[in-house]
């Protein structure tokens, strides 16, 4: 691990890199990248363990649970997200960017930032499930395959973000 953090790479270069990874997913698997689906699989699996009858009665959870013979965590997206964590860790280690810290603006406390992150995550969890995807599964995969709903989602997400941003200025200054 290095003492000084390396500067971030160009977003154009890393964007093209992610585009090649996405293209490889299409060429090899016939499907794209995603993220929020992995969270759904984990929640459905957790409920299936703690409250199986409750999970079995709900069509949303059963959609993420297979016939019971195989483990739902063996889902393609769950393994892909495990890979994302490994890749992010490797990159952070090699670039000297590992920090046990809370990223925030100077206008708020660490505690407030963590509350905001949790609240934002909750809103994104609801929004992503309603839309059937997030910035990865709809934004990147649906964007590249020219899905109408994905482009509507991308536009709506940026409208929502820009509408909320002025109210959150203090949190990021």
């Amino acid at each position: 691990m290095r003492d000084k953090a390396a500067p971030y790479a160009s977003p154009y270069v890393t964007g093209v890199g992610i585009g090649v990874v996405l293209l490889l997913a299409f060429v090899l698997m016939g499907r794209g990248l995603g993220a929020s689906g992995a969270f759904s699989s984990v929640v459905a699996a957790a409920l299936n363990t703690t409250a199986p009858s409750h999970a079995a009665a709900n069509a949303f959870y059963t959609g993420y649970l297979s016939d019971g013979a195989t483990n739902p965590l063996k889902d393609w997206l769950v393994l892909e997200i495990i890979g994302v964590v490994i890749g992010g860790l490797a990159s952070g280690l090699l670039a000297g960017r590992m920090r046990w810290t809370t990223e925030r603006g100077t206008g708020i406390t660490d505690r407030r930032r963590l509350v905001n992150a949790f609240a934002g995550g909750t809103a994104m969890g609801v929004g992503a499930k309603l839309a059937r995807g997030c910035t990865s599964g709809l934004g990147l995969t649906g964007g590249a395959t020219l899905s109408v709903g994905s482009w509507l989602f991308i536009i709506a997400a940026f409208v929502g973000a820009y509408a909320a941003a002025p109210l959150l200025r203090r949190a990021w200054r």
Partner: protein
Amino acid sequence: MMAPLYEFGRFGDGMGLVIAVLLGIAFGWFLEQGGMGNARKLAGQFYFTDLSVLKLMFSAIVTAMLGLFWLSWAGLLDLSRVYVPETFIAPQLVGGLVFGVGFATGGLCPGTSCVAAATGRKDGLALIAGMFAGVFVFGEAFPAIGHFADSTARGAWTLPQAVGLSYGTVVGVIVAVALGAFAGAEWLERRAERPARRMKIAA
């Protein structure tokens, strides 16, 4: 040899899961390299000071879109076997708005929160916890709102079908829009970097 290879039975489920991990590693690597594990950098997108999110997303979309288009044109890939996320107009518009508010509040998206957490950012961990809570809230509300979530279904509907133009024309338009967006992003960032000069001009 015809792509997608998995769809044409070139390898099985086990190999597919190995590929999931490998592609995930590369995805996470590039996200971290681009600074997407840092919520402060991402949030710059919403205040026009750092438009890395827009540049990275558009670069990735254009790269994969052109790759699909050329491979299909060359007869190396069967586009009809590539999964297109299905359209549900109303829930995707409403879900997008809710997601966007969460994005500006949390400063990370579901994928980038994993990279933030992997590099030690506590806000990344908090956001992951929030995602689990949000999915659970949606799941519990599903019996009541499932009808809306399944409404206005249009299937695997694509932009060329919707606007009545050829696939190649739509690809060309998106490339042009992306290039325009890159130029706009560079201009906005230059403007944000020189506040003193901007004030002088204003005065």
